[in-house]
């Protein structure tokens, strides 16, 4: 059951990702990207990380994609781009294949070590994923969390200043 779900979702994710880079119209690309994101959210649930799945949908599929689509609409790009691909098609393909080769090799011959951490399925089900995340975030990683918030603030200011018509 799990395997079927995995392969199905994986197929959808890969195909929609391919469409992201294939579609002529950026709006279509964006919609395909949303599909990919949703598939990933499914995986997160399968990996017993429901909170991450929720965030994935909210932040990526919700916020970021809306932003992207907005921008596409705003600039009214449509089919303005003459050709989809730049001249590096062959080089890009080769390099991408090489990347795949290296990673696959890595996964095939490597071994994921370090099992046996304290967060097991039982722990997750007894505490709930959200609480675990929260505890990690606000106890161990408090300072980075605060720094991240400052980063976002800076990004907001940056975005406002950059898109202002006259500085």
């Amino acid at each position: 059951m799990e395997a079927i779900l995995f392969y199905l979702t994986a197929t959808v994710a890969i195909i929609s990702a391919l469409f992201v880079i294939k579609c002529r119209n950026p709006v279509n690309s964006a919609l395909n990207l949303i599909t990919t994101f949703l598939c990933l959210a499914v995986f997160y649930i399968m990996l017993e990380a429901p909170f991450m799945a929720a965030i994935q949908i909210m932040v990526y599929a919700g916020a970021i994609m809306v932003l992207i689509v907005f921008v596409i609409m705003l600039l009214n790009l449509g089919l303005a781009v003459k050709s989809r691909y730049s001249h590096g098609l062959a080089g890009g393909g080769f390099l991408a294949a090489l990347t795949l080769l290296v990673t696959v090799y890595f996964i095939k011959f490597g071994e994921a070590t370090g099992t046996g951490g304290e967060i097991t399925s039982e722990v997750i089900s007894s505490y709930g994923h959200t609480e675990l995340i929260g505890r990690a975030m606000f106890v161990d990683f408090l300072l980075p969390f605060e720094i991240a918030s400052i980063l976002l603030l800076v990004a907001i200011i940056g975005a406002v200043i950059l898109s202002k018509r006259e500085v």
Partner: protein
Amino acid sequence: MYSNLWLIPFFPLIGSIFNGLFGKKIKNEAVIGSIATGMVFLSFLVAAQNFFKLLGDTEKVHELVMASWITVGKFQLNWEFLLDPLSAVMILVVTGVGTLIHLYSIGYMHGEEGYYRFFCYMNLFAFAMLMLVLGGNALVMFIGWEGVGLCSYLLIGYYYEKKSASTAANKAFIVNRIGDFGFLCGLLTLFWALAEKGVWTLNFVKIAESGHLLESGGLLITVVTLCFFLGATGKSAQIPLFTWLPDAMEGPTPVSALIHAATMVTAGVYMIGRMNGLFAMAPATMMTIAIVGGLTAFFAATIGLAQNDIKRVLAYSTVSQLGYMFLAMGVGAFSAGIFHLMTHAFFKACLFLGSGSVIHGLHHAYHHAHLHDDPQDMRNMGGLRKKMPITFITFLVSTIAISGIPFFSGFFSKDEILWWSFGSTRGHWLLWVLGAAAAGMTAFYMFRLVFMTFFGEQKTDARAKDHIPESPFTITIPLMVLGFFALIGGYIGVPKILGGANRFDAFLAPVFEHAQHANEIHAHGTHATEYTLMAVSVAIATVGIFTAWVMYIRNPELPGKFVARFEGAHRVIFNKWYIDELYENVFVIPCKRIGTFLWRGFDVKVVDGVVNGCAWVVKGVGAGLRYTQSGYLYNYAMAMVVGVVVIVGFFIF
């Protein structure tokens, strides 16, 4: 006991600072001049008091430590003064002659624009010179040593708007610096040599005490003393560093009298006297000194024969007389050298001041007649004895004294030097010959000077000749005082052979006796020899005077013929043996060339060439590589991916 020694240099310093700071505002010449003169006179009083106290004292060496100066580890140096018979004589000479010359300057410098500046420098000089002679260790002495050089520089360059004056000032200071280089090297080597033996000192008394630690006649002591002697040649204008002194006559005449005749230039002699213990231990150095001194006396006298500028004649005469002093030091006649230093201070100061009086008078006359003739050229003078009687008489007395005519001061001192150069254990008859020949020439050119200036018909321009006045009393009083001393100054040192007690020698004995005994330096010979030598030297001087009389009074056309006959020789002598040109070509021009080459050739081309070359290489490589920066995003992205793949691949495989 002698705790007021510090006042002696202190007074002139105060005067100098006062005139330097406020002189410009005061403007009143009388105030400025009398403050400066008064300050030197005050130190003269203190010096005289200390002198007489020392005269009656059995203990002859007194040190006064004022304060600590430099303390670094075992090296401890104080501001300290040393009073012994030698420095006592020197402070009397410096302050005494100094006071008179200051007084003289009040009248002589009247109306000068930088009146306050002049007196500021003069007082500063008095301060530095007193530091030099009173310094209790070599470094305090060195302060004075360089300080007098500085004042000499300032005063030679007093008329700084004249190019020749400022050039002469530079020359004086730089040539002196060459001497100072020697002095420093000697000082440092000596200090090191003594420190090796465990004596960390620069104090003169301690140096004298520990001199025996060094090997007598050894290489080290010879090098040290030779270095010191190089210092002395610079300051005292000896071969090979004498060229600055004649040029130094660019300064006002009182400066020439005080600094370049009576005091500063004798500093080298004084220094050798101060370190006589060391010098006595180095016979090779002593011999060098004697030879250099004798040669200087001789060569400078030859140059003096042909000069026409009244002050230049005196300048070469000074160089020549300084040569005598060095000759004395070199043959071990330390007290005779100092004796000659003293008598020379009197008669040479008097001569310079007298020439100044003449120049002053002529200048006045030319100014009156709106002429621009050279008031220093003897060919424009003549017959002045009636116009300036006091100047003439004092000048004549001093001339006789310098010529070595019996019963004048110069006779006693010069004769003692000649006797020692012949009879001393460190002497040689050749040295005597050099000295005697120089004495004859001295008599000749000094009387040539007198005859050209004061006798014969007046060759001054007709429009000016009736306006030559006798100088005012501030000028004549110092002349008379100095003339008086030039006359009688020698009687404190009448040699035993002439029935005197040579009290001067006895007074200085505590300073020199030890070194002379320890190193077996003494003059030996029979009375007959001594009498004969005396008679010969007097005869030579008389011949010189007579020749001058013949050539410049009886047959005034004779010199012209003489010059025409020996044209080549005359030209060489007139041009000072071309020494200046030689130095210019051997040292100055190559130095400038090397400097220019090092700058334009080495610094700019080689060093900067390498530096800029590196920059060019980097720039060139960069210029080639910048074409990889296409500006296209995917190129960069591709490069990144390649990098990632390579690095990850490296870790995996």
